[in-house]
């Protein structure tokens, strides 16, 4: 299943990437491209990645999230995960990354 990425703006200064589909070797470049584009061009101070629609993610996809998070840190932007699906949640915990990312409550 291809990854679709929807970019939306939430007031006052949050940009949201809503992911639907698989985050893996095929789609990580697209995720990075769009994420880095938003970090460079968008003046928002929060980058939220919504994972509710992620049907599959592996460590390559997770690596792309880590890379975006690192880039956001460097740009002074807060990186936040939203609604991890049970699958992504388990991937995060198995990888010891549960506590690493900020999550929306």
């Amino acid at each position: 299943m291809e990854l679709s990425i929807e970019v939306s703006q939430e007031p006052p200064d949050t940009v949201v990437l809503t992911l639907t589909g698989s985050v893996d070797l095929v789609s990580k470049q697209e995720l990075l491209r769009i994420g880095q584009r938003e970090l460079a061009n968008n003046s928002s101070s929060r980058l939220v990645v919504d994972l509710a629609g992620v049907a599959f993610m592996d460590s390559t996809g997770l690596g792309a999230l880590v890379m975006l998070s690192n880039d956001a840190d460097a740009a002074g932007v807060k990186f936040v995960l939203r609604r991890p699906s049970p699958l992504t949640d388990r991937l995060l915990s198995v990888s010891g990354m549960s506590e690493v990312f900020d999550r929306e409550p």
Partner: protein
Amino acid sequence: MDGRDLAARLENFLAVADTRLTRLGAEDLADEVLDRLREILDADTAAVLLHQEGTDHLVARAARGLEEEVRQGVRVPIGSGFAGNIADTRRPVRLDRVDPSTVTNRVLWEKGIQRMLGVPLLRGDDLLGVLHVGRLAPRDFDAEDEALLQLAAERVSSAVQNQRYAVESAAADLLERGLLPPRLPAVDGIEFASRYVPTENRTIGGDWYDAFVGPDGALWVVTGDVAGHGLRAAVVMGRVKSALRAYALLGDGPARVLELTDRKVVHFEMGAMITVVCARSVAPFEQWTISSAGHLPPVSADPGHPAEFADIHTDPPLGAQPGCHRSEVTVPLAAGGLLVLYTDGLIERRDEALATGLARLRSAVSLAHPDTTCRLMMRELVGSGSPVDDIAILALRRAGPADADPASCARTFEPQPHAPRDARRFALDAAGQLATSARHKLELLVSELATNAVTHAGTPFEVAVRRSGCTVLVKVSDNGDSGITLHQPEPTDVHGRGLPIVAALAGDWGVIDSRATPGKTVWFSLDAPDDSPARYPPTQGTAMSTDPDRPILRPEGDVDMLTAESLQAQGERLLAAGGAGTCLVVDLGAVAFLDSAGLNTLVRLRLDAIEAGGDVVLRNVPERIATLLQVTGLSELFTRQ
């Protein structure tokens, strides 16, 4: 006899002795020398007695004029009589009176011998025997006779030494062919390899290895080392090896077998000291019970874990402490895991600390085929030089689950970004009906390995999937030369999480890296029942309740972070259904692993139960979990059945 005559006779004798030395065996040479001595020294009798190794006797081996001495197998105790005193003092003796007061051997005085001269046969400080001559006429032997006999003794000594060496060398060959198992047993699920390497001069040592299957089907593997060298050590080794096999027939464990063997050694092999390590296992060979009598610990390597010395307790060597109690320890061996038994010749170097050798040994053991492992160990630890001590190695490997499946469904993928996705789909199809959680796991793990093959190996790779009952076996083989490293990535690392995920989620996994050819295979197995609800996460609690007031919760497999929550939910449901005062029984008999998350669940369930006037009772607590309860101080908290 003037000096020139003597010189001529000496020259004559030396020529005979030297030329014959190279062509004749010790027996023929002794006969030849004895003939010459009789002639040159004008003697009527000449005899060679040899020291019998391991005894305090001389035995007649060659004689002229005294042939009955050999035929009767005359034995002379060292320290008594004519020859016995020569052997004891290692000095020449001249006798001018031959009777029962000076000579023990009645053959000599019954023959009417009047004068005798004897010298020791020595090799360095070692006593080989005695050479003596006698005259029927009452004419004394003089100093020149003695010097000549000494010369002859040197020739005989070296011939005897050569013969012993040849015998031992032949015996070393015989040992390799005879005492060591001619072939290792054919055991389903186990691959073997072994080495026996004698020292350069082929002196026999007391090292051995053994592998056999008992009548109960148990597989035994053994290596041992009898202290000392030479035929005696080898013969003791043969007896101990066979005693150990015999005691193994009794059906006891290694500790008991070594206790009995020890008793035999103490009683029948006075003064022998033997180190031995003995391991026993039954199919599927995932547990090995090991007992060690002063022997170096076996090395084991598991897929995903570097080689380690087996964590065993070492008791005293056999023969070292009569009646001592012997212990045994059971250690796990994962599928694809390797177990190596060896003797100290492999690691001991005169110029090196034992710890250094042990460290080198550990680094030489990989998960390669046992034969490759033996080769690598010899290469890394012995190199091109000759070992200073003999070496015995026995290596075995448990078949990896992905090894033995010619019937698996396999497909090759090109190293393209889409390949992991295609491989996932293929694996899901090939695995057939699976519970949802197992499908998710399979998909994730295949994706990880396929992604590694695409991004690191960069070669076409094959994915093979096999469903075997409740297990799915997957192997991913590439042709690249990239190695495998497993480390815990930092939170900000972008890469390196794939294998940790495989390690965390697979039931079992490993790497097969042949080294000989490029490429490697990473395999994993998943516990994957297709019946719903899934047994492997989310848990695992199968409620079995015959009495509504005493419901039973019986989790299976692993109770950890992934499954604890589901167990908790099931427990809470049972408690709620039972109402106030319900006593929930948690049967842990089928739990393979339980960690702090699992403990937490048990504690919380108990608190819930107590709040409602009931309790949680534990049943069939495996030893490991009992220990866990003990060390966490929870032992007293729970009532146990």
